[in-house]
């Protein structure tokens, strides 16, 4: 497989450009050459999302690029999925629950975090918007190892705090919490006892890996 490096480089590039048809062609070509689906995912797609995420974090890439790459990513994963299932030691994906807290219906930032977490290889359970503390607790009980909360509104911050407290009271083993959204700061995250804070979607994916000790 002399071409493997070139193919993976092309996959990474096409993903970053959000070129869905071209990306699918390359992924199919890689599969046809006998490349492992996991290798395509871990050495092509995920690094592509990583680089784009870094560009987004530095404000060198913007929301449309991220949305286009996310579309391309899901199309590529669709192609890979049957092959991933065939692999003997199928990677058990780590579940992450994500939602906008009670009292807030903003979803763009939360969706971008979902995109970046998916791109980083997590199984993302998007709970939606206006989620009461119990919604996050239920998701944690259902197996999420990390609960990510978003809020754009000052008026919703008390619900962020209430959610962190509800998760603590529910005594779920090893559950981690992460918060973010417009006005949320590291200091605020610490004050409510959240395990992590991320200022943007790309940072959220990095922080998630760190909190779950994947780095």
């Amino acid at each position, binding site marked *: 497989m002399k071409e493997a490096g070139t193919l993976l480089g092309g996959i990474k590039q096409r993903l970053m450009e*959000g070129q869905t048809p071209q990306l699918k062609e390359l992924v199919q070509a890689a599969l046809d050459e006998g490349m492992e689906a996991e290798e395509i995912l871990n050495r092509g797609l995920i690094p592509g999302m990583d680089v784009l995420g870094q560009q987004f974090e530095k*404000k060198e890439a*913007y*929301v*449309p690029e991220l*949305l286009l790459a996310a*579309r391309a990513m899901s199309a590529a994963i669709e192609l890979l999925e049957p092959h991933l299932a065939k692999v003997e030691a199928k990677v058990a994906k780590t579940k992450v629950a994500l939602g906008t807290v009670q009292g807030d219906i903003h979803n*763009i930032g939360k969706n971008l975090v979902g995109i970046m977490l998916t791109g980083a290889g997590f199984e993302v359970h998007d709970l939606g918007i206006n989620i009461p503390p119990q919604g996050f607790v239920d998701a944690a009980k259902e197996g999420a190892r990390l609960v990510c909360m978003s809020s754009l509104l000052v008026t919703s911050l008390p619900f962020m705090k209430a959610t962190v407290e509800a998760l603590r009271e529910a005594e779920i083993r090893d559950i981690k919490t992460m918060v973010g959204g*417009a*006005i949320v700061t590291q200091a605020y995250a610490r004050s409510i006892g959240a395990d992590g804070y991320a200022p943007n979607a790309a940072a959220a994916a990095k922080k998630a890996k760190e909190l779950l000790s994947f780095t």
Partner: protein
Amino acid sequence: MAEFLQRLKTEVLISEGAMSTNLAMGGFDQTGNAAYWVTNHPDVYQDLLKAFFNVGCDISTTYTSASNRFRLKPFGLEDKAGEINYKVARLTKEVTPSTCYLGFSLAATAVFLPPMGNASPDEVYESYVEQVVIAEDVGVDFFQIHGSDIEQTGLAVKAVKDNSKLPVAVLLHSINPTPKGFRTMMGVSPTMGATKFQEFGADVIGQTCGGINYEESTAVLKEMRAACSKPLWARPNAGIPELVDGKAVHPATPEQMVEEAPKWVEAGARIVGGCCGTTLEHMAKVVAVLK
């Protein structure tokens, strides 16, 4: 009353300050739909508008940026779109003095068009048409559109142009400083925005709420001035909000606004107003300096 656009050739007009942050002081907790809240608290809304007129503002815009169908949907209020838009426009008109101007405000839908998302351009266009027709029915002086991308903002302009002969002002929303220069969250620069909005037929072009301070607003307006020939509208938020004791505080003071506002006019602004964090005091002082 002289025609709106005619006056902008020789004068600087003042538009109102913030709605959301000032209505919050009147009890709006921001957890519901803003326009719907206004329909249930008409006095708070009208008192705020009257107060802005009392300090010398010339322009009010309807608080309808969050009342297109798409923005009402998460609250289950989609079917009340007609009623909510009509009521808010009426409430605004009732308190706008005959010597002043009333603009109907349209803003982003918070859904994404292809290829980024799955929203139907036709449905987005229709949601704007619905609002434009209501505005025409109520009787306004112009339209004001807030947008952070080109395509969806273009649909809003088209909805106005297809259904009205009134002037239209288009303001670029959510501008941030980035390594590539000023960009909205959708990656649009002031140059791109002003160029395209002029092509679309905007009569006034400007900037509003975003992640920039007053000095950066001046830079944004200069960039727009270089890219288009229309009168500009400066409508910045009072700096980037900070969390202080659990409350959002917009750091820019009325004094800072007064210091910078003449530079906006110098850069081509013919309407000056404010978004989030802009208080009555800010606007009173700006009126005193610019008029």
